[in-house]
Every structure is written in structure tokens, then in C-alpha cells.
């Protein structure tokens, strides 16, 4: 009888900067402290709500059955908020697996031969590009030097996680993970659920204070505040949460309506060029916003491509410092005459597919998007 199979599982030899939990079932980036803080904050707010406001409303709203709706809505809101943030933060966001050694040379051979297609920003080793057509729009794909894969259209390499992700939106420190193809819907629904529940909790706080300030012998607004400090604390926490997420929820609603990612919006991938060249969004098949929302929120569920629980073949393991990893972990050799790579892989300027015509629009810059409040779109480290 065969014993337990020896050898590493792929999550144990994963080359990116990720943490894995439950034997590879769950994963996130290395920085999860903020995610833990957000979850704890939600739980504390929920605890205060159920212990004080919900109880007060159930007991003081007549007829009695009507007040029961508040804890029910609160429980549903808590369930959905936690489910969405944990799904957003603890699953594979859409990582493109790195190429294995036998694929690397083949990938390099597919590059455009046009010298003008090479990046102007690198000293020494130029980047490699190939041109494809997406729904009639020519797009230039880049060969990722870290992952040694041709980045699909809309994909980008996250400098923090050190992975290429499909439909890369941004790296979100609040969920401790990148937001990309597989978890964008959970991230968006988390923003919406927190927005709605913040408004709901604040409304309940106002209701409690209003009721308390009209009942009892020494009924007054100040007395009501003193007798219900939990409501005041909840109002403050929910208010801060609302300020943080409402703008983001609005921005992502607008991005979904026009079928763009945060990455494309910041880089202006589909904006009119100064020369007057027309660049259309090839992913915006329909101008119907409802259909775009249906696609994003209710569309199919693409599976994880990195096969975390699979076993790594011995021949695929490579030494990376003091660890063993599988898949491309170093620099590709683009061709004769290439110099050394000056920039480290981690510092690689990320780029999605560039809509042709373009010059250096593929070179992203670190941006703190003004409307994103606490959110930082990290495109490079």
C-alpha cells in the first residue's frame, strides 16, 4: 500500500510574497494586520450594537414584534460584511502561475522583433513585448521578467505580493490582499455592505438617542447621550467607517459602470491621447451599466490557477536564497546583447497591456488616488 506521498506541496514552495493558511486552502499577502484590525472593528461594533442598541429598540419600540427587525438586519449585515471581507482577503485573487523552465525560452521567442517595441526605461536588459488584438483594439503585452509569462491583457504585477494577477485592480492593505479577477466582486460587495450597515447602525443610534431623549423623567438630549454611551461610540465608529468606504464604493461603482479597473483608470489606459489617437476600451462590450454590474457581481467563478494543494515535481524546484520555490524566480534572458538587469524584480514597474498607440504609458507610477481616502493603490513599491 502506498504511504503518504513525499515532496512539497505547491503552497509550501510558492515563489510569491504570500501567506498560506489551513494547509494552503486560504492565502493572503504577508501584511494581514490591517485586515485583522478591520475584522475586529466590525465585531466590536456588532457586539456593541446587539448588546445595547438592538436590545433597546426591541424593548422600546411598539408593537414589540416590529423592533425585532433591527437585530435581524444587523445579524444579516454582520454575516455578509464578514463573509465578503474574508473572501476578499483570504483567497487567491487571480494569480497567474509562473512559467516553468521549459516554457521560458519558448515565451522569449514570441517577442516582437521591432526595436521600437522595447522599453526605453530600462538600462541594459530591455523589456520584451508582443502585440495582440483584443476585440479589434491592438494591445501590447509585456513579458514579465519575474514570472516569465506574457501578462494577459488587464493583468499586472504587484510589487508587494510579487505576483502577476489577472484583471489587476489594486493592492488593498485593508483586506491584506490584492484585488483582482477572482476577488473583485467580494471587495466591491464588502464596500457596499459596510456602507449600508454603517448607515443602518448610525440610523439606529439616532433612533435610540431620540427615543431616550423623549422617555423617562429627566428626558433630554444630553441625558440620553450620557445614558447611552455605547450609541455614541457606535456612531463614531460607524461614521469613520462610512467616510472611509463610501467614497471608495462610489468610485468602484463608477469603474464597474465603465468596465475599467483602478489600475487602468489611474494610468489612463483608455483616455484620449494628446495626439488625438482614438483608444477604445475593448472590454466595454455593452454600454448597458446593469449588464456590467451583472457580469462583475453575478458572473462565473474562475478557479484558482496556482493549484496550491498540488505537489511540486522535484525537477521544478529551484533554489531561491535559502528556500526552495517552483516556477520562474529570476530574470529571463531576452536575447543577444542583453546586459544585466539593473532593477530588482520587486521594483519592476508594473504594466498592464498597453493600448497601442502608446509610448511609455505602460510605465506605472506610485499613486495615492485622492478620492480613495485611506486606500492606496500600490502599483510599485
Amino acid at each position: 500500500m502506498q504511504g503518504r506521498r513525499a515532496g512539497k506541496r505547491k503552497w509550501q514552495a510558492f515563489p510569491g510574497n504570500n501567506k498560506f493558511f489551513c494547509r494552503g486552502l486560504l492565502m493572503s499577502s504577508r501584511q494581514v494586520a490591517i485586515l485583522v484590525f478591520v475584522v475586529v472593528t466590525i465585531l466590536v461594533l456588532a457586539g456593541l450594537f446587539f448588546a445595547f442598541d438592538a436590545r433597546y429598540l426591541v424593548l422600546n419600540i411598539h408593537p414589540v414584534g416590529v423592533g425585532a427587525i433591527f437585530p435581524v438586519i444587523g445579524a444579516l449585515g454582520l454575516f455578509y460584511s464578514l463573509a465578503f471581507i474574508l473572501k476578499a482577503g483570504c483567497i487567491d485573487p487571480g494569480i497567474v502561475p509562473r512559467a516553468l523552465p521549459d516554457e521560458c525560452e519558448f515565451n522569449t521567442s514570441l517577442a516582437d522583433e521591432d526595436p521600437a517595441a522595447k522599453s526605453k526605461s530600462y538600462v541594459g536588459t530591455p523589456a520584451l513585448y508582443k502585440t495582440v488584438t483584443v476585440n479589434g483594439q491592438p494591445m501590447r503585452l509585456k513579458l514579465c521578467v519575474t514570472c516569465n509569462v506574457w501578462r494577459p491583457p488587464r493583468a499586472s504585477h504587484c510589487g508587494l505580493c510579487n505576483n502577476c494577477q489577472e484583471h489587476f485592480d489594486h493592492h488593498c492593505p485593508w483586506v491584506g490582499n490584492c484585488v483582482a479577477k477572482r476577488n473583485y466582486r467580494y471587495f466591491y460587495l464588502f464596500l457596499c455592505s459596510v456602507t449600508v450597515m454603517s448607515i443602518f447602525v448610525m440610523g439606529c443610534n439616532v433612533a435610540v438617542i431620540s427615543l431616550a431623549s423623549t422617555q423617562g423623567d429627566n428626558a433630554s438630549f444630553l441625558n440620553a447621550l450620557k445614558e447611552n454611551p455605547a450609541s455614541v461610540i457606535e456612531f463614531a465608529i460607524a461614521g469613520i467607517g462610512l467616510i472611509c468606504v463610501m467614497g471608495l464604493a462610489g468610485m468602484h461603482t463608477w469603474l464597474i459602470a465603465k468596465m475599467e479597473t483602478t489600475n487602468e483608470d489611474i494610468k489612463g489606459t483608455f483616455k484620449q491621447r494628446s495626439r488625438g489617437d482614438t483608444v477604445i476600451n475593448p472590454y466595454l462590450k455593452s454600454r448597458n451599466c446593469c449588464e456590467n454590474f451583472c457580469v462583475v457581481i453575478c458572473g462565473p467563478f474562475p478557479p484558482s490557477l496556482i493549484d496550491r494543494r498540488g505537489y511540486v515535481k522535484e525537477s521544478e524546484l529551484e533554489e531561491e536564497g535559502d528556500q526552495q520555490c517552483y516556477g520562474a524566480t529570476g530574470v529571463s534572458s531576452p536575447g543577444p546583447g542583453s546586459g544585466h538587469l539593473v532593477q530588482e524584480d520587486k521594483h519592476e514597474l508594473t504594466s498592464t497591456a498597453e493600448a497601442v498607440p502608446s509610448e511609455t504609458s505602460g510605465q506605472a507610477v506610485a499613486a495615492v488616488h485622492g478620492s480613495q481616502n485611506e486606500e492606496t493603490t500600490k502599483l510599485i513599491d
Partner: protein
Amino acid sequence: MDRQGKKIFIQRDYSLGTGVRFSPEFPRELQGRVDEAVYRATLEHINDIFDRAEALNCRAYCEGCMACLTGYMFQYCIKTHYERRVQEATDFIREENRTKYERLGVVIGDPMDRGLRCIEVFIMPEVELQT
């Protein structure tokens, strides 16, 4: 072709968008080894399976809505439509290899083994084929 055989990688076709689709162009390395019509039929069938996996129809929307209402917990209970189509593609490729390609010295790989980036096609050396 060297003694160890040759690997070629059928790339993704993005002409219709970012959906999973592989280029049905007949590789020159397979000329004389595999019938072009047979190869194209195999690739088109694989593309059709993934088209059905990613189809935006009533079924997909119902699955999405149901998943949303359960807080996406039901995905841990039953396989999604996409996962079932991926398994269908794996089974189809295995069957095609067994019935058509292996006797010609060609093995078509599962695209999931390559993260849906490409399809590996292994071409055995002619010497091995004759033995």
C-alpha cells in the same frame, strides 16, 4: 527534433477578449504528424468548453445570485459550473490523447497544468515512434 522530443506551447487567443481561448492555428511542428482538421477540431472543442464555462447566461447569473445570497459559502459545498467545465476539458483531452494523439506520438497537455496560460503539446521523437 532532438532525441528527448519537443515541446510547443499553444498560446492564448485574445482576439475576442480576455476569456479563455487558445489559438486554433495549426503549428508547423505538427505538420506531417497530425491531421490539421483533427487538431483544429480538438482545439475548437476545448475553446467551446471554456466558452460554456464563462458564458454569461441565465444559469450563470442564477448561480451568482444564489452564491451571493449565501455569502459565497455554498461554493464550499458544491462545485461551481466553471470547475465542472474545467474537469470536462481535462477528461476530453485525456480521451483525445488516448484515442487519437498518443499513437501519433503527440501528447496534448491539460491547460490547467500551465495555469490556463497555454496548452503544452509534447511531440515524441520519430525514432521512439517507430519502436
